[in-house]
């Protein structure tokens, strides 16, 4: 009994110290001590080994296979005849680059990704900040609803949205008083519905993780900024957001990756048969190559996909890694 109390007392002191140290670190705003050289040099390798092995097996090796495939002609004939797949050099890549559908799909994908990521981040971070300001009961309600929405598989949420936007019996036309409006004849409207599904599904993830990050922002820091006369917006810009930067950074990177590859939502909204005006890179790749059993070409499209994303993200990822050293 007494012992427990002592332990608890110690824990409290430790906590307080934590505050002091964290605040001090953040307030100093200078770089925190960089990760140090370990005393046992093999230790970090042991620590990353499990993750590394899994990633090598499940992602790196298949990626290498895909890369090799992209220089081959590899289709049904090769699969079933045991012939070695012939190397065709850059032929698959030439085919991609000379296809106007590819370029149209690329443009569409870039626009959609930008729209989806910015809307997701805007709502996600906004809701996280809002949750901080809500009374506990409502925060709990919002959190439960978000996690519940997050738990709905995309293929289900897409079906629900499809049903809600159904021309004759959809609840959306009913609530908006639009009569028998068809949401899918005009691709801009149809893709807006797709964007809504994606954003609806992605916001809970951003909101919950941002909120987890927000809880790590020391209250003292905010209060002292307040006392210095900073307005709410200034606190947000000068204190909260900079501290959230690492979390937001990885969220944006992952969102770009995921939204760039968006597939399910559009695929299902268009009855597994998207018109050319609805095709994103992911769908284009699937329809042109994958369903055509042309795995060499599919590999090339995937590789082009990776390169495009890498170009978009390389600067950002570098920044993230550097930031990690400062945090």
């Amino acid at each position: 009994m007494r012992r427990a109390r002592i332990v608890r007392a110690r824990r409290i002191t430790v906590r307080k110290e934590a505050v002091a140290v964290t605040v001090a670190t953040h307030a100093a705003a200078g770089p925190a001590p960089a990760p140090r050289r370990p005393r046992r040099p093999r230790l970090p390798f042991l620590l990353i080994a499990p993750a590394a092995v899994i990633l090598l097996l499940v992602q790196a090796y298949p990626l290498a296979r895909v890369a090799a495939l992209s220089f081959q002609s590899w289709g049904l004939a090769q699969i079933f005849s045991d012939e070695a797949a012939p190397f065709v050099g850059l032929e698959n890549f030439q085919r991609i680059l000379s296809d106007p559908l590819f370029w149209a799909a690329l443009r569409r994908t870039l626009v959609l990704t930008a729209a989806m990521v910015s809307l997701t981040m805007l709502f996600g971070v906004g809701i996280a900040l809002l949750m901080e300001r809500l009374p506990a009961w409502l925060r709990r309600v919002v959190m439960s609803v978000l996690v519940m929405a997050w738990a709905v598989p995309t293929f289900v949420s897409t079906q629900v949205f499809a049903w809600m936007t159904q021309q004759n019996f959809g609840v959306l036309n009913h609530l908006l008083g639009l009569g028998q409006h068809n949401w899918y004849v005009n691709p801009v409207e149809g893709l807006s519905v797709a964007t809504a599904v994606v954003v609806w599904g992605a916001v809970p993830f951003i909101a919950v993780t941002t909120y987890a990050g927000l809880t790590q922002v020391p209250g003292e820091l905010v209060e002292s900024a307040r006392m210095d006369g900073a307005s709410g917006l200034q606190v947000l810009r000068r204190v909260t957001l900079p501290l959230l930067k690492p979390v937001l950074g990885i969220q944006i990177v992952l969102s770009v990756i995921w939204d760039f590859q968006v597939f399910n939502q559009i695929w299902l909204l268009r009855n597994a048969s998207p018109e050319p005006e609805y095709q994103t890179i992911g769908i284009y790749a699937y329809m042109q190559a994958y369903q055509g059993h042309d795995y060499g070409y599919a590999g090339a499209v995937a590789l082009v996909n990776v390169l495009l994303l890498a170009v978009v993200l390389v600067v950002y990822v570098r920044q993230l890694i550097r930031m990690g050293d400062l945090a």
Partner: protein
Amino acid sequence: MKARLLAAAAAAALLLGVAACGDDAGSDDPNAGGELTVWLQVEAQNLWPKTVEATNAKLKEKYPNVKVTVAYQTWPEHLAKFDAAAQAGSAPDVIELGSTEMGLYMAAGAFSELTAHRGEFENNTTWVKALEDSATYQGKLYGVPYYGGDRAVIYRKDLLAEVGVTEPPTTWAGLMELVNKLNAKHAGDPTFSSFFLPGQHQYAAMPFIYDAGGQAAKLGADGKWDATFSTPEGITGLKNWKSLMDAGYKGDRTINDLTAFSTMVAGKAAMFYDSAGQMKKVFGADGDPKLKEQIGTFRLPSPTKADGFVPAFMGGSDIAVTAKSKHQEWARAWIAAYLGSASQQAFVDAGFLANTKGIVPSDPQMKGYVDSLADTWTLPPAKNWAAVEKNKIVLNMLVDIATGKQTVEAATDAGDKAIEALLNAA
């Protein structure tokens, strides 16, 4: 990487050589043990699981030490999974493929030739021609017809009776008159379709082309395929299709036919044109069992011939033995046990057509389908037709026509060019 590939190729060549020397066909000794893997589509799991069990039991009698594993696949991804399994050396011994999917795989050499074993399968002299054709490549048989399905008009007797019609129409004029009566009766309901006919349903649209004397594509004397949607026959057919849609369908024209039956259950559609499987869904577990007595079928009358009917699309499935299977004899024995007359009756009861002309549904509700058998068509036997399907060229063309985005002429012209490029690709 390259060295490894070369090694793999060498190993493969070696294996091939060994296989060619060994007497593979007769090696399945009745007492030998082993595992036989069968891939069927989910219909078998949902509609006739007992038939599958009985088949496995029958095989067990003949080969007591063989363990059969039946795995069920879904339509959208099963071919990619088959490709992957074949590459990994774990392809099934027996596989079901849709009749429109066979061409590509037969051409690639995926299946064992069955021409010499034809006699092992029941009803082999009375197979439905469209199905047998789909399992035949360059005159050789590579699959056994599994079941078939054609199309007919499904209607609700009670809704027709409300406008005083008790016998389904047998002429185009009669059909149009019926549509107009139903429209007038339900004029106040903007969600009611006299004839549910959305754009993304090629097996409802293309029959009109065949009715007008056209077809999807034909092989020219130069050995190249000509797509023929933009021929005068094609255009006439699609205009007739569109006129029925304009007259009878109120709803989303960009969708497919899969919600037709539930719309009918809800009383929001009086007729639609589809397979018997869809007809059975109206009063099945997902529909309303009380409607069973209210559903009938009839053959779609022709808009171009006074007493004629629209030729129906005939689809279905075939079952094949994979060329790499190490158990050719067991595989054939399993198929023979599975596709006997007794099973065919189970398929017919589930709403499909048997693989043989010898077994015809006696159910009066199937009348439209039995009548439609008189004149059926199937897709062109081009090995690349699968690519046309995968690229949704026909579906997109039909949706553009249905929504009025393009005229029939412009849409078919563009569609034909795209189809020819695919069909004549290497």
